[in-house]
């Protein structure tokens, strides 16, 4: 079913400069896979080499963080909005 994925500003250059991308999916994991299939350059920024979502990539379904739902198995319904929201980290060592 169609759901909208909101792309954060720093990743828009890798998604055809689009603010959102429509995908067809039943779960968050399927939605992200479909997003990557459309825009392959997003992969390295969203997923680590082991295939897991990077720790500073946060995914929300509507206003809910998927870490507190069923993570990438979280179901999505038609009309849901998936948001990719950065968290920021760094430091001298």
């Amino acid at each position, binding site marked *: 079913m169609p759901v909208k994925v909101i792309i954060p500003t*720093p990743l828009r*250059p890798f998604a055809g400069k689009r603010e959102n991308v429509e995908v067809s999916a039943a779960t968050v994991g399927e939605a992200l896979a479909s997003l990557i299939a459309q825009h392959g350059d997003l992969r390295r920024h969203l997923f680590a080499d082991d295939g897991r979502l990077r720790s500073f990539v946060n995914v929300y379904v509507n206003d809910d963080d998927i870490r507190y739902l069923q993570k990438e198995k979280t179901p999505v319904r038609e009309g849901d909005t998936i948001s990719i*929201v950065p*968290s*920021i*980290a*760094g*430091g*001298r*060592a």
Partner: protein
Amino acid sequence: MSLRVTAEIAEQIRALGAAGYPHEICGALLGRDADEAREVVALFPLDNRQEDSPRNRFSVTADDVRSAERAAHAQALEVVGWYHSHPDHPARPSEFDREHAWPWYSYIIVSVAAGAAEEITSWRLEDDRSSYQAEALEIAARARS
């Protein structure tokens, strides 16, 4: 590729870095991005959420990022990057910085030695995540209109 900041904002970042020493301080850079002419016109200071090692790490939550974006949009600006301090360490990105960086954003680093702010630099992550590219930091007397 360059980042324009006013002398006042550069001084604010240095002052925040010195005031927060020996901990790392951090916040968002609010401004405008027009291809090659990126400009910072305001800061949005944030708490360093890294409670276990604030002397050598900083972190900002997704909710903090959303707050910064709301503050930017309220001023018809956008979040163009982030600043943080390196206490007793050069203003160069670490491997930890690179691993956690996002593309496109400008990352300003201020070095703070024994409580006194020193060098201030800016960096952008390469699109393939392999390294940081130094970004010319243009310190201007005032913002563009």
